[in-house]
C-alpha cells in the first residue's frame, strides 16, 4: 500500500512539475498524472479494505467522528470562503490604486442590459496578463461579468472574429455585440462598456468658422480628445458653421463654444441669443484676452466675463516656472455639475479668466461651480500669459475665491435654458483633458446642460506605474547589508548548532 502511495505521489509530482515547467500537457505529463492517480486510487482502496477488516464497532465510531470532524471543517471553510467571495470585501493596496473601480465604471456595469462576458486572450508567458486578470476580477465583483481566459495559440478563430492584434487583449461581449480592447486598462474598458450600451444622449453642435477651437484637430491644443469623449458617452458631435446658419437646428441638444479667438459676427451672437430665449443650452469655454462678443450676451444672462487673468499663488509654479497663472482648482460649490469633485479631486486650468455673477432675472438661478483658492487675485495685465513669468499683485487687488466656472438655469416660456461658462478652454484641450479631473468637469458640464444629470459621474483615470530606475549602486549596500548578511548569519547559526549537536 505504502509503495503504491509513494509511486503515486512521485508520478503526480513529476507530471505536475512537467506541466508547470512547459505549461503544456505533454505525453510525459499525461502518463505521469494518469499513473499517479491510478496508484493513489489503488493505495486508497487497499487502505480502506484494511480498515474495514481491522476496525470493530467502537473503532468505526471513532473513525466516523474523526471523518465528520474533517468534513465539518471542510464545509465550514467552504461556506466562509463563499460568503466572503459573495461579500466582495477586498482592499486595493497598490500605490496607484490600480484595481479600485471608478464610479463611472461601476455605473456602466450596473446599467448593462445583460450579462457581459469578458475574455482575456494572452500568450502563456505574457506578464501583462497578471494585472489584466486582477482588473477583470474587479469588474466581475462589481457587476454581472463572466470572466474567461483563452490562450492565443488555442483560439485562431477568435483572432479573426474579434480582430485581435496581440497578446493581452480583452474582448467584451454583450449579446451579439462585442468590443475589442487591445490595451486593457480601466479607462479603455470603461469606454468599451459605454459603447456596448449604445446609449444616445443627444446632439452637440460645435460652433465653427470664427476662430473657435477645432474638435477634429489632434494637435496638443486641439479638441479631438473631447470629441472622442463625447462620442464615447453617446453624443453625436456636429459642426455648426455660424456664418451659414440662420438659427441653431432644432435637433441640437446643446451648443458648444470652444474658446473663440476672434469676434463673432453680430448675427451669430443674435442667433445664439434667440436660441437661448427658446430654452437652448450653451456650454461656453472662454479664453483670457479674447473678446468674441459673446461676453455681452453672457452678461445679459447674469455671467460677466471681465477681461483679466486669475493669478492663484496657491497653485504654485507651472511647468515653465510661472507662478500661479495656471490655477489648480480644488474648491467646488455644491452643484449637480460638480458632484463627486472635492478638494482631493482637482482640476487644472491653463490661464483662466475670472467670472462675476449677478442676478439676471427673478426666476433665474446663476451659481458658481469652480473657484480658485482664497489667495487668488485678478490682474488685467494679460502679458503675464505670454511672458509666462510671475505676476505682481496690483495695489488694491482683492484676494478672494475667484470664479472659474459658473452654471445658470433660466426658466423661459419655451423651456428652461441652461448655460455653463468656464473661463478657460485649454483645460479641455488634448493636452490637458486627461489631467487631474478635467475630463470629468468637461463631460459633466455637457451632461448638465443637456439635462442628463444621471450621467454625471467620475471616470477612471489613466494611471502610469512608476518606471524610474532603481540604480544598482544605490541598492548594492542594501544587498550586502540585508540581502547577504542575514542569510550568512543564519548559516553561521545553523553551523554552530550542528557542531554543538555533534559534540553532544
Amino acid at each position: 500500500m505504502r509503495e503504491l502511495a509513494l509511486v503515486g505521489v512521485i508520478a503526480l509530482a513529476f507530471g505536475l512539475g512537467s506541466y508547470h515547467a512547459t505549461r503544456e500537457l505533454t505525453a510525459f505529463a499525461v502518463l505521469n498524472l494518469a499513473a499517479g492517480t491510478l496508484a493513489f486510487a489503488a493505495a486508497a482502496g487497499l487502505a480502506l479494505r484494511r480498515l474495514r477488516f481491522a476496525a470493530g464497532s467502537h473503532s468505526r465510531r471513532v473513525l466516523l467522528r474523526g471523518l465528520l470532524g474533517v468534513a465539518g471543517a471542510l464545509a465550514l471553510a467552504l461556506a466562509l470562503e463563499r460568503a466572503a467571495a459573495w461579500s466582495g470585501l477586498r482592499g486595493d493596496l497598490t500605490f496607484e490604486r490600480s484595481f479600485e473601480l471608478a464610479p463611472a465604471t461601476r455605473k456602466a456595469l450596473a446599467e448593462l442590459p445583460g450579462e457581459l462576458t469578458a475574455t482575456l486572450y494572452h500568450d502563456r508567458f505574457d506578464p501583462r496578463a497578471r494585472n489584466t486578470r486582477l482588473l477583470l476580477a474587479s469588474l466581475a465583483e462589481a457587476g454581472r461579468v463572466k470572466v474567461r481566459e483563452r490562450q492565443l495559440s488555442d483560439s485562431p478563430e477568435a483572432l479573426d472574429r474579434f480582430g485581435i492584434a496581440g497578446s493581452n487583449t480583452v474582448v467584451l461581449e454583450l449579446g451579439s455585440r462585442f468590443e475589442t480592447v487591445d490595451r486593457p486598462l480601466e479607462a479603455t474598458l470603461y469606454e468599451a462598456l459605454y459603447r456596448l450600451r449604445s446609449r444616445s444622449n443627444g446632439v452637440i453642435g460645435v460652433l465653427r468658422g470664427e476662430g473657435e477651437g477645432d474638435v477634429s484637430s489632434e494637435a496638443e491644443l486641439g479638441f479631438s480628445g473631447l470629441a472622442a469623449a463625447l462620442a464615447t458617452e453617446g453624443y453625436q458631435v456636429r459642426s455648426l458653421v455660424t456664418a451659414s446658419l440662420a438659427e441653431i437646428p432644432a435637433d441640437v441638444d446643446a451648443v458648444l463654444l470652444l474658446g473663440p479667438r476672434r469676434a463673432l459676427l453680430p448675427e451669430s451672437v443674435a442667433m445664439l441669443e434667440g436660441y437661448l430665449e427658446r430654452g437652448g443650452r450653451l456650454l461656453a469655454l472662454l479664453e483670457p484676452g479674447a473678446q468674441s462678443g459673446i461676453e455681452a450676451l453672457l452678461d445679459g444672462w447674469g455671467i460677466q466675463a471681465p477681461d483679466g487673468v486669475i493669478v492663484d499663488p496657491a497653485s504654485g509654479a507651472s511647468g515653465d516656472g510661472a507662478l500661479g497663472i495656471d490655477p489648480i482648482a480644488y474648491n467646488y460649490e455644491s452643484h449637480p455639475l460638480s458632484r463627486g469633485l472635492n478638494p482631493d479631486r482637482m482640476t487644472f486650468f491653463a490661464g483662466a479668466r475670472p467670472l462675476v455673477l449677478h442676478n439676471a432675472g427673478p426666476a433665474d438661478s446663476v451659481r458658481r461651480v469652480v473657484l480658485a483658492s482664497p489667495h487668488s487675485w485678478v490682474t488685467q495685465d494679460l502679458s503675464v500669459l505670454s511672458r509666462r513669468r510671475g505676476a505682481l499683485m496690483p495695489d488694491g487687488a482683492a484676494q478672494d475665491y475667484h470664479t472659474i466656472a459658473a452654471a445658470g438655469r433660466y426658466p423661459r416660456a419655451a423651456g428652461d435654458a441652461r448655460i455653463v461658462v468656464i473661463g478657460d478652454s485649454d483645460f479641455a484641450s488634448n493636452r490637458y483633458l486627461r489631467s487631474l479631473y478635467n475630463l470629468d468637469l468637461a463631460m459633466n458640464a455637457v451632461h448638465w446642460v443637456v439635462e442628463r444629470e444621471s450621467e454625471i459621474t467620475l471616470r477612471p483615470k489613466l494611471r502610469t506605474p512608476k518606471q524610474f530606475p532603481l540604480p544598482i549602486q544605490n541598492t548594492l549596500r542594501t544587498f550586502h547589508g540585508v540581502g547577504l548578511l542575514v542569510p550568512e548569519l543564519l548559516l553561521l547559526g545553523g553551523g554552530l548548532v550542528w557542531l554543538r549537536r555533534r559534540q553532544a
Partner: protein
Amino acid sequence: MTALRALVRKELASLFGAPTAYLALSMVALVTALIFFDHLRLYNQILFVYDSATMGGFASDTVPDYVNLWDSVFFPVMETLGLTLIGVVPLVTMRVFAEERARGTDELLFTTRLTPGQIVLAKFAAAYLFVTLMMAVSFLYPATAIEQGGLGLEHLAAVFLGLTLHGIGLASIGLLCSAFTSSQLVAAVSAWAVAFLLWDLSWASGFVGDRIAALLEALSIQPRYSSFAGGVVSLANVIYFAGIALVSLAAARFSFDLRRVSG
C-alpha cells in the same frame, strides 16, 4: 493552556535545535536576494535600452506600461518565491509528526494532560511561527530595496500577508502529510505533490466545462497568491488559506484516531 504553551515552546526549541531550520531560513533568504538582485539588474538594463533608443534621456512615455518596478521586478520575484516555498516548507514540516511517530515519542505526548487536538494545535502553531519568520527573513531585502524606491508600504504589506498566508497554507499541507506517515521522506514528497497539485489546477481546464474550470481555479493556490502579490487583499483569499489550515488541522487530528484504530 500552560501545557499547550510549553508544547509550543518545546516544538520551537526542537525546530531551532536542528541545523535544518537555519539552513532552510538561510537558503530561502539567499535565493530570494539573488533572484531579486538579478531581476533588478535586468530591469535597469531594459530601462537603459529604452533610454538609449530614444537618445533623449530617460523618458517614461516611451517605456511600455508593464516595465515598472512592480511588474518587472517585485511580482516575478514573489512568484518565484511562492514556488520556491513549495520546495522548502515541506522540508521543515516533514519531521514534525513523522519523526515522533518513527521514534515512538508521540505515545509519551498522550500521557500528558493534552488532548490530541491540543497536541496538533501546538505543533501547527510552532510551524506557523517558523514559517512567518521564514517569510520575514526572505522578504527583508526586496522590501527594503523597494521601499527605498518610494513605492508605498501598503502594497508591501499586502505582499507580505500573501506570502505568510501562502507559507501557512503550505505548512498546513506539509504537517498534514507528516501526520499520516512515520517516514519523513514520504511526508515531504507527498506534501510536494499535494502542493504542486493545488498550486495551479488550470491544467485541467481544457478538459472540462467553464463551470468546473472556474471551480478548479477557485481551488488553486496560485491565483489567490498572485492577487496578494498584485496588491489586492481579498477576504475570500484570506479565508481560503485559513480554510486550508483548518481542514489540515482537522485531518491531522483525525490521523490520531486513525492510528488508534489501525494500530
